[in-house]
């Protein structure tokens, strides 16, 4: 009976030791002391070998039972201790998640409104099947004026406030034609270059920098224009109206925009028109597509027969229309910049306020603007 009692005592002792183990290390010491090679329970198991079969029959299950029970207890205690330790760790590992982080490069960078607007325009005209044509900023008098039906000395030339380039020294034996190169005053010279190089049907838009000797809140000596040109055998003013009205609706992202086509004059179109859009000026900003005011937004017309002829095409066979508008200007109208001069100042604060996100890509499927 002594043995049985001592097993019970052993159970009590080990159970208490397990209970009292305060960490994994202490628990492991208890495990070694009880279940290790020289442990108290292992000692009991070894004593089985000296017993008679009868004794063994009763003592065997009792000792093994003790061993298994203690092992289970230890495992349970170990789990409890692990959980407690993790909880303790988690409590001590708290960080202040309100600490601010720097904006990443993608957040810091920006796209200029002129580029963004051009991408928007490109998305729209791409859908209408237009290509983009471009030409040089430094143009000859011929492409900028003469080919576009501006007679020499005509007041219409004067209205352009042209920048002239200094005359190039004339090589010996050569004669100067007297015509200086100019900074193009409009993107229209590219109409000529396009018609000279491409067979109709032609559908192009022509963005680019243009220059006039002028400066105030809405005029800068450099600005951006977008020209459009359609040449084929049948395009007429009714289609011009459609193209421009569809463009204005898409660009300003409104369901409807009333337009007013007024007869006007440009040397390179006939008939010529200026286009006003419906707008509301009652608030601080101009709203397009509402209200009772009109705002002049672009010039357009049927390409002048002389211009078509100057490009080697027969105006009785080929016809078409062209238009021109200010990219900066329509950017200002859509996005509300008050002063054109700021466009070219590269003030960090202005760019952060009026710039666009690097991946804010204007598309028709995703929407022109977010």
């Amino acid at each position, binding site marked *: 009976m002594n043995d049985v009692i001592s097993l019970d005592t052993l159970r009590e002792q080990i159970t208490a030791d397990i209970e009292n183990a305060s960490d994994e290390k202490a628990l492991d010491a208890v495990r070694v002391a009880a279940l290790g090679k020289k442990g108290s329970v292992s000692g009991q198991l070894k004593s089985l070998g000296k017993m008679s079969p009868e004794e063994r029959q009763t003592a065997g299950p009792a000792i093994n039972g003790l061993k298994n029970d203690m092992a289970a207890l230890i495992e349970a205690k170990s789990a409890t201790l692990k959980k407690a330790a993790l909880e303790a760790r988690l409590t001590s590992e708290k960080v202040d998640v309100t600490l601010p982080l720097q904006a990443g490069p993608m957040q810091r960078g920006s796209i200029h409104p002129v580029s963004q607007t051009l991408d928007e325009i490109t998305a729209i005209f791409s859908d209408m*099947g237009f290509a983009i044509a471009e030409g*040089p900023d430094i143009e000859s008098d011929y492409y900028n004026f003469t080919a576009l039906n501006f007679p020499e000395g005509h007041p219409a030339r004067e209205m352009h406030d042209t920048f*002239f380039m*200094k005359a190039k020294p004339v090589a010996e034996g050569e004669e100067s034609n007297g015509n200086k190169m100019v900074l193009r005053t409009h993107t229209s010279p590219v109409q000529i270059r396009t018609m000279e190089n491409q067979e109709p049907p032609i559908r192009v838009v022509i963005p680019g920098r243009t220059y006039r000797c002028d400066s105030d809140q809405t005029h800068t000596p450099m600005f951006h224009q977008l020209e459009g040109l359609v040449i084929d055998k049948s395009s007429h003013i009714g289609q011009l109206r*459609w193209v421009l009205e569809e463009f204005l609706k898409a660009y300003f992202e409104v369901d409807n925009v009333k337009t007013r086509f007024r007869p006007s004059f440009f040397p390179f179109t006939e008939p010529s028109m200026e286009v006003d859009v419906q707008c509301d000026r009652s608030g601080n900003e101009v709203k397009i597509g509402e209200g009772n005011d009109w705002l002049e937004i672009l010039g357009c017309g*049927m390409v002048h027969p002389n211009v078509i002829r100057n490009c080697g095409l027969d105006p009785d066979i080929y016809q078409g229309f062209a238009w021109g508008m200010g990219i900066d200007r329509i950017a200002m109208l859509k996005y509300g910049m008050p002063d054109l001069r700021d466009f070219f100042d590269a003030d960090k604060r202005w*760019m952060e306020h009026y710039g666009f996100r*690097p991946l804010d890509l204007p598309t028709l499927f995703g929407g022109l603007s977010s």
Partner: protein
Amino acid sequence: MKFTIDWLKDHLDTKASNDEIIETLTMIGLEVEEVEDQANVLNDFTVCEVISAEKHPNADKLRVCLVNTGSGEPVKVVCGAPNARTGLKGVFAAVGTYVPGVDFTLTKGNIRGEESNGMLCSERELMLSDEHDGIIDLPEDAPVGTKYVDYAGIDDVVVDIAITPNRGDATGVYGIARDLAAAGIGELKDGAVKSVPATLAGPGDVSVDFRFGEDEPQACKMFAGRLFKGVKNGPSPEWLQKRLIAVGLRPINALADITNYISYDRGRPLHAYDADKISGQFHARNAKSGEEIVALDGKTYQLDETMCILADDNGPLCIGGIMGGEESGCTAETTNIFMECAWWEPLLIAQTGRKTGIVSDARYRLERHADPEFVNPGLELATKMILEICGGEVHEPVVTGEVRSPEKIIDFPLAEITRLTGLKVPFAEAKAILSRLGFWVAGSGDTVKVNVPSFRPDIEGKADIVEEVMRIVGVDKVPVDPLPRLSGVAPKMLTTIQNRRRLARRTLAARGFHEAVTWSFISEKEATLFGGGVDELKLENPIASDLTDMRPSLLPGLLAAVGRNANRGFADVSLFEVGQVFKNDNIDGQLNYATGVRSGTAKFAQVGRDWQGKANKVDVFDVKADALAALDALGMDVNNVQVVAEPADWAHPGRAGRLQLGPKMILGWFGELHPALITELDLQGPIVAFELNLDAIPAPRKKASKAKGALEISDLQPVRRDFAFLVDGAVEANKFVKAANSADKKLIQSTMIFDVFEGEHIGEGKKSVAIEVTLQPRQKTLTDEDIEAVSKKIIAAVEKATGAALRG
């Protein structure tokens, strides 16, 4: 061009409302810029009487007036006008009234201790004239309390329209009336001018010589003149003054007012000379270089051989078609006059106008081509008015030269209207419109003959006639018609270079740069510093002294922007621009560049300091990374891009490099800005920059298939081995990578430099370079022997290429 509705109705019989008239003007191409209803503007001013005017107790020049305004108690007003006196009938503005001539709204005032509750107004304050010597002094019978506009009959509406350069005919009220009548706004009245018989025999003692050399430009083609005797050049009648004031002209004297009136009424400028101030033979010629004239504006103008003048034996009298001379002008004392009505070559008038800078009503009209058929009628109209207003006697006209305006007849297929506009206009309507505009239409088939009137020289062909019909019918009547698609799905829109610019922009913005757009022109100093400054890229007429040269590089503009931002307190900025630079003035001298700058601590990962780290300065490797990232985005395999230590001129010679595909295929540069340049441009370093020539990138090869090559991946794990070498400090790190990679091309996947250092303990002028080589077995796991063998090859290759020694 300003006119009043009242004036318009001299020539137009209409019942249309003012709003209809104004709306129609714009829609037929005579764009209304401003409408001013005079009665509205002056609605609050009333007739008043000064009951008493006492000297101000504290000011010698002021008077304290008690004013009867016709309603309520008399009002106390302090007034500084010398003519403010007891019993004066004047014009009163109460507190709260907007006074247009001084552009403010009256408030209750206290002037030197005396209360003032309104204003006694001058003509200038009401914008009736420039008169400001005293307040308005009305006749004694003026009824106190009535509205001044009612009393004075001011009820007119002033319309200001913009005239396009092609419409000389619309620079006169009569021409405007004709356009309106064509558009259905009333009937045009008969504008024919009857000739006025002379009261004195013959032309008198004047004649006009044309003295133009054979090869000289001849601005004056026809000169009609007429001599008047014994006229009285007093003030013009009130109706005439009123009209001139309404359109913004100052009444001067009867003769000046009559010429101004005809100029506005008929678009026909005239000029009156004081005949007694002409000495000897009156003639037209081109000026001689060195001649000068004091014009009517009091300024002296230098003349040259391209300018046509009217002159006598003593020299220039008038800058022909632009402005008269002061000396020969008419004054109140003038009794004998010689009146000029001439036809001038518009382009030469425009040229002289430009050269002298004179903006006059005469130039405005004559450079837009005055009607050659209205030279003689213009003079007759002036004669009629002078005799009526100034009295006197008149001789026969003298006419020198002639203007032959050849009959212009255009064969006009009626289908042209539909062809160019899509608008269908019945023949009868088109014909009626053209007739009302003064054209003469003959024939009735598909093609008619249209005879163009002399006052419409801008009409040259069929398209012009289409415009005439369309603008009168109304552009808003043109049916909107979709432009047919040329293909189902729209084809690619952008060219390669356009796409490169777009991708470069988005990539650089995504790397933390702001996109800047800077002027295409920069200062001569900047241009020269960056390899430009050649003559052919200089502007002849720059708008500012620092915007004179077309930029040879985008850097000067960006660096100036860095400086401006620094001056505003933002020293850490990253800016890029994608745009054109100019190498010469040919079409292929304009190149597309993508250029970026970083200043201060504006690095890719972090700008300035934060709680996680200190503020690191930008360095050359920031911009090397930017440039390579952009090239990668543009589709280049950056492994093929060579980085060589060839600095750009703007760069620090030891901290800069060049990107290339070969010595002749240079893609761009990157580096730290040269310290001397930073000083020269008055900037604060460090600043790093890169430039990429987007035009230099080779076009992508056309591939037969869009499919990518097969992906080869191995199930076997890669093995990494490190090697450290000691090498001469000048040897470029690039060589290590190249040599190691070449040691066993099959097995070696990549080589990375993971450590570089210099220090005393490894020896003066030496450096340690450590590389990690990744081996990728393909067929079987590598044995120790395999690895040992390839390691030996790597060491041998590196040592051979660099002269380095493996560190023990």
